[in-house]
């Protein structure tokens, strides 16, 4: 697993649409995302969180500055599961592995992650035969199975009901502690930020984007709960910053 953090050095970025006369989204923006930690980017909708993920992922290129450490080797978990409907659960995971390992190892890796997310019995089902929560579990398994140094998550639990959200948050923690991969989690949900984030970066609502606060959560993942004194204090702070 990577030892180096991801460094965002003085980047500038705007979408350059002729009709867009607003200020650029990012201007001389700096940020350091520590290795082997879960960094949460918290901020209101439209503040540039997803754009930053795409810049780290290499799908967008900054106009100025540089991003060091992501090296294009990232795995992405989206808001919707984005499974391929014509491939079974198992083969949806294997498709991203085949380029990196032999077919036997792909199969074993897929099996391992299916076991971790509790879907071994559904391995030969098609996505249309699964519930929404099961599909997102497959997507989580696929994101972790892909041999990337960094996992990027773009509000993956946003469209789910509360029970499922808690369930999948716990599942993410269970998978993450297995190899403690550098992870960046974008959300506008304060509770998700508290439960998952080791570092919480709060983004401003104005252009260009600023980090208005960085909060470190000292509590180990396994002991985190929304009722703990530590979580409540962070929650209070985050409410104050975002309201």
């Amino acid at each position, binding site marked *: 697993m990577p030892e180096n953090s991801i460094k965002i050095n003085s980047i500038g970025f705007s979408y350059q649409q002729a009709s867009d006369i607003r200020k650029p989204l990012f201007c001389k923006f700096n940020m350091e995302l520590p290795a082997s930690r879960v960094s949460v980017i918290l901020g209101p909708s439209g503040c540039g969180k997803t754009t930053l993920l795409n810049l780290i*992922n290499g*799908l967008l290129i900054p106009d100025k500055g540089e991003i060091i450490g992501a090296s*294009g080797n*990232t*795995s*992405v978990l989206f808001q*919707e599961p*984005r499974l*391929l*409907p*014509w*491939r079974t659960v198992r083969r949806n995971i294997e*498709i*991203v592995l*085949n*380029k990196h390992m032999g077919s036997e190892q792909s199969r074993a890796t897929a099996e391992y992650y299916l076991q971790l997310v509790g879907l071994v019995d559904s391995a030969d089902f*098609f*996505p*249309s*035969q699964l519930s929404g929560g099961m599909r997102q579990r497959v997507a989580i398994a696929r994101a972790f199975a*892909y041999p990337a140094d960094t996992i990027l998550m773009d509000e993956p639990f946003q469209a789910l009901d509360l029970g499922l959200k808690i369930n999948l948050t716990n599942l993410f923690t269970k998978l993450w502690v297995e190899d403690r991969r550098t992870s960046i989690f974008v959300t506008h949900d304060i509770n998700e930020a508290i439960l998952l984030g080791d570092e919480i970066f709060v983004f401003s609502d104005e252009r260009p984007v600023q980090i208005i606060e960085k909060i470190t959560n000292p509590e180990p993942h396994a002991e985190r709960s929304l009722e703990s004194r530590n979580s409540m204090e962070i929650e209070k702070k985050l409410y104050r910053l975002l309201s």
Partner: protein
Amino acid sequence: MKRSLPGTLLWFVILLVVWEITARSGLVSELVLPSITVVFASFGGELISGSLLSGTFVSLGFVVAGILSGAFTAFILAALSFQFAAVKRLSSMLTAVLHPLPGIAVLPILILFFGIGRLTLLMVIIHSVLWPLVVNITAGFSSVPAVYQKIGANYALKSSAFFFRIMLPASFPHIFSGLKTAWARAWRAAVSAEMIFGITGSGGGLGWFVFQKRIFMDTPGMYAGILMLALIGLIVESGLFHLIEAETLKKWGEA
């Protein structure tokens, strides 16, 4: 709409009964409408003699060869259209002009170029299947959701893996629809052309079988050939295509 098999069978039986009553009433000459039992007897006799089956295999052979060649050409044209705007414009122009032309309408031109023979028959079938396939495959490639393209980019799939594992299956609903149209057009074109050509090479197809029976006023044999044409159509359209649909699109939640 859900089809009820007993209901369909009931109508089929009613049709046969009406046929039999009309044939036995003497109102219509048996040279025009023979008894259904005579038709079935002729069907059985032609099956045993092998002439009906050999005709069926000849026709199906032409259709399969035509669909395979047409599909191969259509894939190349659609892939080039997807990549190059100039080819897309050429393909759109050719499709607009040639797609509405029935296979039989281009037969005189093909005869001038290729004479009367297997090649011309094959070309008629290729013409019948090529354009609906080009239209559907092109539409399929263009309608692959951006989300699937992003999956390919996120997981850094090679371009060949992206084409075969994402583009092709994602376009499958359109391709399948094109294949259904292609089959229907190819089957009709093959039978019609056989009726015009007669025997090409070693033996005639089902179209020729029906035509020949009419010439010799073997009306039960003619009906037996038409029955076989309908049966093949039924097996492919309601059997084979339904099976493929059940195993693919329905399982994928796209039917």
